[in-house]
């Protein structure tokens, strides 16, 4: 028989319980997937082109939409690139606040990934629990920033709000709750023999392949490459934080999941350190702070937030270009801005972690079983809007 005669082409998605916002074209021989081709672009919202029509500050909300669960890290990446372009730096307290929100976002983004992985394996409890524990961090982030997910918190030169009163105590209780919960997750999901059977040895990404294909984030670290931008090229408050880069050697789906769990633990530790070491001081760079009308000073101190100075609306960075990279929850995000001196960027490039990981679909989901498609997909924590931008 020719190949066409015994291979069944399955179109998984875009309407499919486990496809997300993409289509997977799987060629299936019996129960074995011969090859799989990801068909992405279903959420391509043209961020790079739209950025060319927007002022620099208006791009902040724009780049937050694609990586929705992981907004703060991407916001930070963009703002760092912009600050490099402008030649300014945020004051220390703002840097620590940024790091705080980035780690909080990492926790809830990882829970998001774990929850989606759970439902893809059929464990609705893992999904529901993860989405519940996410709410803890979301609730706290909401007190800090005023929004559930789309914080738009970091602006060039600083952050928009200061810690609300009593935040440290509340955070401490929340972190202790999360630490209590993780053993239960282990019992019902991570160490459930069924989960183990589904994930162990499934979708193994070897170390050299991970490097060759340019994989990022927990997926890379699960294959034994200790590459983490927070260590390699530290930004904000990370040089002063004590944390480990979580790695695993196996490179299978289970390892990828467990790296995320390990990173949640690390982030919990980091948040404790951040709240302990947070310096006092202004949260916006002085030159912008001076532009705010004096009549707002008292209001700002009382409400612990800042007014946007009008100068920020139409920032005009000098001609040139800047690159910044951050370790977002799903991996390294690269922001590249080319400025021609006008208030709008000349070329704006976002390289999100998901677009760099999309190659894993065709690489990993091959010669595995149909049921392994969601198991591997879930373990990648791939978020199509982030990839398509």
């Amino acid at each position, binding site marked *: 028989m020719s190949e066409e005669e015994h291979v*069944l082409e*399955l179109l998984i998605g875009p309407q499919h319980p486990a496809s997300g916002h993409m289509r997977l074209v799987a060629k299936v021989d019996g129960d074995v997937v011969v090859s799989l081709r990801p068909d992405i672009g279903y959420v391509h919202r043209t961020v790079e082109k739209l950025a060319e029509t927007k002022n620099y500050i208006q791009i902040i909300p724009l780049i937050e939409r694609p990586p929705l669960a992981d907004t703060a890290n991407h916001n930070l990446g963009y703002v760092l690139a912009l600050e490099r372009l402008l030649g300014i730096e945020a004051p220390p307290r703002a840097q620590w606040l940024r790091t705080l929100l980035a780690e909080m976002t990492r926790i809830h983004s990882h829970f998001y990934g774990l929850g989606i992985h759970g439902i893809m*394996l*059929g*464990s609705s*409890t893992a999904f*529901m629990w993860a989405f519940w524990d996410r709410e803890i961090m979301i609730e706290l982030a909401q007190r800090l920033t005023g929004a559930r997910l789309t914080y738009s918190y970091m602006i060039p030169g600083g952050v928009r709000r200061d810690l609300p009163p009593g935040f440290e105590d509340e955070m401490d209780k929340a972190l202790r709750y999360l630490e209590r919960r993780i053993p239960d997750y282990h019992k019902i*999901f991570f160490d459930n023999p069924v989960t183990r059977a*589904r994930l162990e040895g499934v979708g193994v990404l070897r170390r050299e392949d991970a490097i060759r294909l340019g994989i990022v984030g927990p997926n890379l670290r699960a294959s034994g490459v200790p590459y983490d931008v927070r260590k390699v090229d530290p930004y904000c408050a990370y040089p002063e934080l004590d944390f480990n880069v979580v790695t695993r050697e196996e490179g299978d789906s289970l390892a990828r999941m467990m790296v995320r769990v390990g990173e949640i633990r690390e982030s919990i530790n980091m948040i404790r350190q951040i709240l302990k070491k947070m310096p006092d001081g202004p949260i916006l760079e002085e030159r912008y702070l001076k532009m705010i009308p004096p009549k707002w000073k008292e209001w700002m101190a009382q409400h612990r937030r800042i007014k946007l100075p009008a100068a920020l609306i139409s920032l005009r960075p000098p001609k040139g270009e800047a690159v910044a990279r951050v370790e977002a929850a799903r991996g390294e995000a690269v922001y590249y801005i080319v400025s021609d001196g006008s208030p709008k960027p000349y070329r704006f490039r976002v390289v999100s972690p998901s677009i760099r990981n999309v190659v894993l679909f065709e690489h990993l989901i091959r010669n595995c079983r*149909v049921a392994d498609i969601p198991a591997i997909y879930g373990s990648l924590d791939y978020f199509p809007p982030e990839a398509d931008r």
Partner: protein
Amino acid sequence: MMGLLEWILDLLLSPWLFVPLIYPGLISAFAVLLFIIWFERKLAAKVQLRYGPLYVLKRLGGAIQLVADLLRYLFAEPIVPDQADRLAFIFGPILLFASSYIAAIAIPISYDFYAFRSEISLLVVLGLNTLAPAFNLVIGWGSNNKFGLIGGLREGFLITADEIPMFVSALAMAVLYGTMDLVRMVELQSEWLWGIALNPLAAVTFFVLMLLSTSRFPFEIVEAESEIVMGPFTEYSGILYGLTMGASYVKLYVLSLLFAILFLGGWEPLPPLEFPGSWLILPGAVLFLKALVIMCLSVFMRAVYPRYRIDQALRLAWHYLFPASILSVFLSLLVLSGWSI
């Protein structure tokens, strides 16, 4: 007039109509269906720290959620895809549902109330039960959908993997009791011990296989939504879908009744009662409660487990459950010889 009413009542209460139509047949099967699906959702919701269906009837915790769902199915547009095999598509679910519940007719509900009593009534129940998965195959093929086809094929693999060990573990009990007559089995359990104490291995094996054959978690493989949408039922809408969804629960109900009779002493500890009327209600209720507990335990697994891959389920069935069922036969012999010494 009264005569007519009495005649109808008599007819209804006669075992040959009562058993297939009312209990444990159609009507109670529907009642169980309404209850158990709601209960499954509530139970999973509780483990997941939430409420589940609530506002449809708030005082009873949303207990009639399935009524609303059924009404919606009933009034939804029935769609038959152009390329489906119309006959298979329409009659598949009906036959699937019917064959899932038909085995209930061979189940006795008391020492002296049954549609028929036979020396081999256990075989009748098991045999009729094996019919249902075949219609899953028909449905999967008939709806002419790739996911349906894969789901049907999975069912095909699972039939052999679950039905054979299930037969064997049930027959282990027949070996133990020395009969295949379900009424006699209950009688013997009242003299000895409950089957679950006599042969726990067969009980556990049978229970796991029950989960497997009714596609409860962790073996919800035939309609594994994250892999193959709804498997054979992907193309079904409206009331036909309602039937396909209900079928596996009805099968679970029948198997739970069988489990209660084989292992939990049936309507024990009730002795044959003398006063009129009681022969119907009390033993039936006891049996029903036991079956209900088994069903609740089965649906609780949804809150605990992800699902196995098909090959893992097959391996589990052939590597562990099948040998376990064979072992349980020997265990039966051992117990029997121990008993007679």
